[in-house]
């Protein structure tokens, strides 16, 4: 056990004594339930229908953000937050205010919630906040519904191409998952980050280095007029490292890495941190000593290790429902005929490739899957397994409660894919893939193939040229172009063996169980042009400076 962990444990035991009472927590749910019931019974605007469905979702949590550089704290804050989602629908499950696109002048405020949520467990305050939002959204929904009815009457609803959205009816959901996780003390994290960030002091050529810690602890409360009662706690922790250096040529070389866990103390493992920092420094040195990628390449690429989940994070959004056709709405445009949603049952990918979601799976092969969740933002419990692609055949798309096709049913994935499980029935040996890479490259007229091991969010990468003699040469500043569902067809081969990754992105963490390697044909790699040059500093870096 490391020093970090010991310190952490001591603070943690103190924190566990700070716990909200059950009664306080119930105040939130009670306020939501009472206000929802009142509105379902009493809310009605003259000349309009009452709501048929209301849901309240409320996130109650704390975000801890601490950043440090070279032993000094740059920023530290523990910020409580509360946000709510209110949905009020008028009409019925088959046809309602959300069924069509609207020209209604006030619809821009629809669903937009500008009434603050009280920070305290103040029963009447919470109800007041929900009351105002419900009233506001209902009035718009009621008017929209009238407008939609009018549109429906004007159109030939029996026409073949007449499409509208339906709302999926669900039975009541009851779910309570309360973990003991409390927010960490920001002061304690500051102390740890001072130590961690100080490690960069031993690398005097680095021009800037930062270490960031982010913890998001929240409880999701949900209730709706289908009598659902949900209360689910969760926590994610991210420790990120960023470093950059200005080379003698005035080029800035930046590297980053991060660790993700559901428990903060797991991140502050000295051995793991040292390994991550050393690996970053090696990557930086590798980049500085490498040549720039300066050619246009269209050919086979072997994606290995971390590059594999990054590849799929760019492709996965294609497995979403397509919206209704609405030729009258210039903003939405025509429905994308190529969308996977229109090709369910057809082959759209390699015969050996299978993609499924297992959003509720919390652990795989001894590794925690941080992206797992038990209920989505719409209060839908996802199935154990959602098969999107099976042996290359499109099987399903991620579907919300808003249904645009009769075959759709909600998949409970409104909070994101959660856990993505990709398998390829292929090779068990990486060297076979390397050989195939060279063969395919040769067919394309290249005397080398390309291997990618890591990609940034912007698809910027360093690439390895694999030469015919098996040697590898590293090049920096390349860019992968043209991600899309066509990649699924281009997967030529892959490894059976799998890795597990937790990838942090803008919408939270997604977990990936993926083949260790995938060989993809016809990938376009270009030199990156977004590299700015600066003058070499005239004044020496203070880190290595001695008077």
């Amino acid at each position, binding site marked *: 056990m490391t020093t970090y962990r010991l310190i952490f444990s001591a603070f943690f035991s103190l924190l566990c004594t700070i716990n909200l009472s059950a009664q306080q927590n119930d105040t939130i749910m009670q306020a939501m339930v009472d206000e929802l019931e009142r509105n379902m019974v*009493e809310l009605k605007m003259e000349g309009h229908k009452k709501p048929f469905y209301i849901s309240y979702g409320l996130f109650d949590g704390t975000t801890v953000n601490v950043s440090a*550089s070279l032993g000094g704290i740059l920023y530290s804050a523990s910020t409580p937050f509360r946000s709510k989602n209110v949905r009020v629908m008028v009409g019925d499950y088959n046809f309602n205010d959300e069924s069509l696109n609207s020209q209604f002048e006030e619809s821009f405020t629809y669903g937009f919630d500008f009434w*603050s949520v009280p*920070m305290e467990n*103040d029963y*009447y305050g919470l109800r007041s906040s929900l009351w105002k939002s419900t009233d506001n959204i209902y*009035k718009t929904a009621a008017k929209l519904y009238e407008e939609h009815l009018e549109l429906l009457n004007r159109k030939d609803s029996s026409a073949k191409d007449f499409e509208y959205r339906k709302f999926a009816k669900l039975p009541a959901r009851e779910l309570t998952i309360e973990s003991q996780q409390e927010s960490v003390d920001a002061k304690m994290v500051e102390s740890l980050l001072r130590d961690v960030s100080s490690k960069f002091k031993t690398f005097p050529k680095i021009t*800037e280095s930062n270490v960031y810690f982010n913890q998001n602890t929240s409880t999701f409360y949900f209730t709706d007029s289908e009598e659902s009662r949900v209360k689910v706690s969760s926590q994610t922790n991210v420790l990120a490292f960023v470093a950059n250096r200005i080379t003698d040529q005035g080029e800035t070389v930046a590297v980053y890495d991060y660790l993700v866990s559901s428990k903060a103390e797991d991140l502050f493992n000295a051995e793991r941190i040292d390994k991550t920092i050393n690996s970053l420094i090696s990557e930086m040195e590798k980049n500085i000593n490498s040549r720039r990628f300066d050619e246009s390449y269209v050919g086979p690429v072997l994606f290995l290790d971390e590059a594999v989940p990054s590849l799929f994070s760019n492709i996965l959004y294609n497995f979403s429902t397509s919206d209704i056709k609405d030729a009258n709405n210039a903003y939405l445009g025509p429905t994308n005929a190529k969308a996977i949603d229109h090709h369910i049952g057809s082959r759209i990918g390699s015969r050996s490739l299978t993609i499924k979601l297992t959003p509720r799976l919390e652990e795989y092969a001894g590794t925690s899957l941080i992206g797992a969740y038990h209920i989505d933002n719409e209060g839908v419990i996802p199935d154990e397994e959602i098969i999107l692609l099976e042996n290359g055949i499109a099987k399903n798309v991620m579907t919300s409660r808003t249904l645009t096709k009769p075959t759709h049913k909600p998949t409970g994935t409104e909070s994101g894919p959660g856990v993505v499980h990709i398998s390829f029935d292929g090779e068990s040996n990486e060297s076979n893939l390397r050989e195939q890479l060279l063969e395919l490259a040769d067919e394309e007229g290249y005397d080398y193939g390309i291997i990618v091991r890591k990609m940034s969010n912007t698809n910027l990468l360093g690439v390895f040229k694999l030469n015919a003699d098996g040697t590898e040469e590293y090049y920096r500043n390349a860019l992968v172009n043209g991600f899309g569902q066509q990649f699924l067809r281009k997967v030529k081969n892959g490894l059976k063996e799998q890795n597990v990754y937790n990838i942090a992105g803008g919408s939270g963490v997604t977990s990936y169980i993926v083949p260790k390697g995938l060989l993809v044909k016809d990938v376009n790699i270009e030199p990156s042009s977004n590299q700015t040059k600066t003058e070499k500093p005239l004044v020496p*870096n203070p880190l290595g400076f001695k008077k």
Partner: protein
Amino acid sequence: MKLVSLLTFILLYTPSVYSQDELLNILSDELDREWEVLKQAEEPAYYISYRVEDQYTATIGASLGSIVQHNDNKVRLGQVDIRVGDYTKDNTREVNSLYGFNSYGSYGSHNLPIDNEKKAIQQALWKATHDKYNQAVKAFRLVDSQDDDKKEVSDFSKEKSNEYFEDHSLVVPNMDGWDKKLKRLSSLFTENPYILNGNVNISSSANRSYLVDTEGTKVVRNKYRTQLTISADIVTEDDEVIPFHKTYNVKFPEDLPSFESLTDDIEGMMRTLDQLRVAPLAEPFTGPALLHPRAAGVFFHEIFGHRIEGHRLKSDTDGQTFKEKVGTKVLPEFVNIYSDPTRKDYDGKYLNGYYRYDDEGIASRKVEVVKNGILKTFLMSRSPLEKVKNSNGHGRSNIGLKPVARQSNLIIEANETYDHQELRSLLIKECEKQGKEYGYYFVDVEGGFTRTDRYATNAFNILPILVYRIYIDERPDELVRGVDLIGTPLAMFAEIMAMSNETEVFNGICGAESGNVPVSAVSPGLFVRRIETQKKPIEKQKDILPILERPKTSQTN
């Protein structure tokens, strides 16, 4: 009692020994290290400054009886200024380029470590200095490549360096008990079903500000500011939403009015809102008007104060209203105006625009701007004018922005005054003369804005929130809604006829190109022969009043 609370909240207690301020030493050391090299570079820097602010801010917000915001924030921000060239012509000069104006003016700020961790702060400053030096060299090349007709005006004034060090103890605002007070105060608004929003917010900040430069200036100041804002919206019968607010500016939270006094103010505000709810909408009008001292303060800040900020007069894009008017009559001869950032209060009332040193390290001083209606000089930063070569301690900005000449405490005084009744009589007389049934009385304003550039109408807009009609006959004063006071500056100055013997302080935050700076305007009331009003933009929403009754207010309130 006050003494006890202050002692309790002293964050850092160290002797006020100049050399014991660790951060100041770090800044000075890194500045020296950079200066040694950059002053001898192929394109040498002739001036470098480091400005750093430790900013501690606490905010609590309550809405209709519930706490909706409770934040504490502490950051340390740094800003580097480097000048390449010399005092007469440097990289900061405004010139045209293929890509628009030379953009060196956008200084930018960056986070520095909050801890006094020497290497960490040094490296952040070193990186920022490197970036800034490169920008300055590029900008100077562009400046140098252009002939320009302003060569007789220097870009940076030569000033005496200053050393000033305030006690190292920073008093963190004491917000204890304010959450309960705000809840109770904001819950008062729930009594009126037509009030949509009723918010009470308090924000208090403690800033320790450092400036070191290569001329030898070392200025370290502590700045405190607390603002409490009460705001509410009421819905009229014709679905118009009328906002109303009241703001209090003081140094520390404990200086704010008592809870009882705030309660009285809210109750008064609710009565006013009820009256406004049924008040008639006013039509555009031109004719005589009275301005209450608070409204007059904003009036002078907008239409006069922004036009005496020196740096503007240097810009070819500015209207330069007063540039050539020094020594001439610009206001009635009974009017005197001065700007005095050295004053902490006026007749015992707190002034928001007080400071000892400006953001360029220049000592603040009282500047007589208008004497007996004659314009004497301008408010100056270190950006000289042809006829005013030096700063008079008015270079101000938020960190991250270039300091420019800004107002501080703008104080308007009159050689001859009238009491309010006399001003009313003058107004009525003037109405009769102009054949008007009534004149206007602007009692309170929420603020205003003005344009000084020459590409749009050089006009101002004062935003009143409480306006009465004063009738020439026996009818009582009538509250109206929906009025904005508009006009153009020179025409308006000529219409000021008399001033009152009552003076009030308007404290506020002025936003302009160098950010938001705290200011005050102190003015007597005004009688103006002719003003113009236009209709205020209306916020209308159909069916905005909730259908169901508001759930009860929390019993704890």
